[in-house]
């Protein structure tokens, strides 16, 4: 089924319902449908047809939504590219995607225009799309489930960003596994501030539009603006990454913000340190519920959810099992099975750590340019590269990345465990841990910390004290006090950029 149907059906059923808001401009489903049709016309006039790739380099605007469905209508693929990458990365993204046309948000990404010109790729500004005259969107009926609807790129925390082709089949399967189409009744309003070139942004957008939850777009996350939008539009739901939430609760504007309509915050895309989650729960109104989502681009969004009931249980902490849930990413969603594999790729019993593998029909069959070699999803089992275990109740606990594991004299150390211990200390605003070469042990734990008080002091002895609950070999033996840590726009740590 073509993803354009995810807009076509709600437009037929709830055409007058508000689908999208950017700034103070609401668009009904009918208007959104018409604008997507108009953009399809602009793209067709520019020579875009079935099988072509159109790049979008810009912030979260209505034009992204129109381009997404407009491309789908033509059988073309929208490459949602990170416009905030440096010029070299943008060049790689454009060239690798094979885009024959770029839709460019010139205000947000002036350097993109330069790169596009260098590469000789035709560009259209978002203003031209905005001015196009509405026509109904047509939905092709010959789309194969394996046709690519959207191309996104992995965050490239360990290597160059790789293209992940999201097919019409996988995206529609995800949405239909989550919700039925809207019947026009009020399903709330969701604020999307995560970049729409990230899987969390795209999946939130599609499920909300199909399920009838009005989407309010924040072009680029800024805490004060987010709080103003949340109050002004009576936002009920929002998805944020942990670093965004950390900034939100530190914002001076939080004290006067109206979050009375907010019922749920979902978080994901990067690990949530338990200490940060406790601070978030303490800072936001008690009426807010929380959902933690664990997913990957390669599994086409969420595969496990730590839901609101789980959060209530660990906040109440009536038992040690309940209290431990704060370290979990939740249980598998309905169309997913999670396996933990040993070194021979065989599933292991509960509470044993191994490689996390996802079994789902949504898994991509390979990366862009490499789609037939099945490098990531042999037999629909996607080996994530994350390490973790399932408890006897089916809760998944992530202990780190296989490639990040520190090996000190034969002892395996998960950086995440040490980072979480450091972040429990009030003096530390951010922390990263990695293996540092050592003549005696091969590797020892090196800790990078960002202090809350700039210019404050924090010594190796302090770090050892803060980590005194960990085994001695896991405690930091090198300490680097830095002003910030390299992270992707969605908050994932870029360990390869740490200056060891």
């Amino acid at each position: 089924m073509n993803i354009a149907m995810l807009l076509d059906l709600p437009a037929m059923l709830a055409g007058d319902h508000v689908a999208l808001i950017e700034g103070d401009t609401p668009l009904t489903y009918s208007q959104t449908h018409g604008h997507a049709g108009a953009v399809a016309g602009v793209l067709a006039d520019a020579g875009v047809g079935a099988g072509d790739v159109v790049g979008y380099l810009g912030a979260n605007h209505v034009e992204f939504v129109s381009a997404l469905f407009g491309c789908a209508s033509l059988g073309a693929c929208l490459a949602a590219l990170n416009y905030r990458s440096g010029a070299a990365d943008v060049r790689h993204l454009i060239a690798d995607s094979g885009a024959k046309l770029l839709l460019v948000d010139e205000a947000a990404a002036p350097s993109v225009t330069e790169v596009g010109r260098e590469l000789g790729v035709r560009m259209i500004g978002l203003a031209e799309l905005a001015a196009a005259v509405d026509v109904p969107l047509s939905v092709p009926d010959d789309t194969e489930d394996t046709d690519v609807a959207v191309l996104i790129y992995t965050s490239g925390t360990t290597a160059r960003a790789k293209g992940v082709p999201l097919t019409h089949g996988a995206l529609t399967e995800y949405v239909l596994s989550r919700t039925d189409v809207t019947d026009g009744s009020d399903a709330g309003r969701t604020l999307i501030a995560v970049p729409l070139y990230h899987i969390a942004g795209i999946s939130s957008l599609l499920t909300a539009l199909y399920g009838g939850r009005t989407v309010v777009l924040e072009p680029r996350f800024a805490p004060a603006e987010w709080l103003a939008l949340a109050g002004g539009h009576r936002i009920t739901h929002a998805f944020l990454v942990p670093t965004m939430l950390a900034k939100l609760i530190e914002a001076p504007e939080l004290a006067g913000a109206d979050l009375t309509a907010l019922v749920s915050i979902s978080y994901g895309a990067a690990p949530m340190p338990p200490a940060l989650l406790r601070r978030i729960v303490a800072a936001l109104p008690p009426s807010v519920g929380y959902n933690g989502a664990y997913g990957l681009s390669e599994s086409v969004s969420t595969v496990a959810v730590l839901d609101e009931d789980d959060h209530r249980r660990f906040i109440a902490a009536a038992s040690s099992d309940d209290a431990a849930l704060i370290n979990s990413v939740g249980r598998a969603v309905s169309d997913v099975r999670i396996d933990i594999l040993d070194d021979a790729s065989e599933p292991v019993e509960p509470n044993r750590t191994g490689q996390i593998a996802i079994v789902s029909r949504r898994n991509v069959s390979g990366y862009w340019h490499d789609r037939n070699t099945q490098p990531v999803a042999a037999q629909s089992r996607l080996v994530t590269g994350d390490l973790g275990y399932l408890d006897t109740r089916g809760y998944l606990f992530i202990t780190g990345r296989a490639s990040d594991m520190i090996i000190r004299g034969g002892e395996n150390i998960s950086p995440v465990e040490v980072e979480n211990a450091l972040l429990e200390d009030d003096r530390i605003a951010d922390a990263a841990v990695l293996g540092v070469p050592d003549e005696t042990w091969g590797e020892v734990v090196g800790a990078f910390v960002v202090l809350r008080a700039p210019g404050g002091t924090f010594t190796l002895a302090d770090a050892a004290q803060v980590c005194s609950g960990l085994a001695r070999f896991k405690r930091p033996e090198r300490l680097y006090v830095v002003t910030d840590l390299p992270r992707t726009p969605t908050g994932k740590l870029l360990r390869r950029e740490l200056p060891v």
Partner: protein
Amino acid sequence: MYELGKRLTCAECGTQCLVIHPSEPGELLCCDQPMSLNEPKKLPSSD
């Protein structure tokens, strides 16, 4: 006759259908038996 947007499942083979065009009166059959209407699924708060 089925309403737009409703989903049906074949109890025998598991095939699912989504109604995307207004339908004529009648019944949808799969594996020689009527397909059953799925329970409504509301958008969860985690999305």
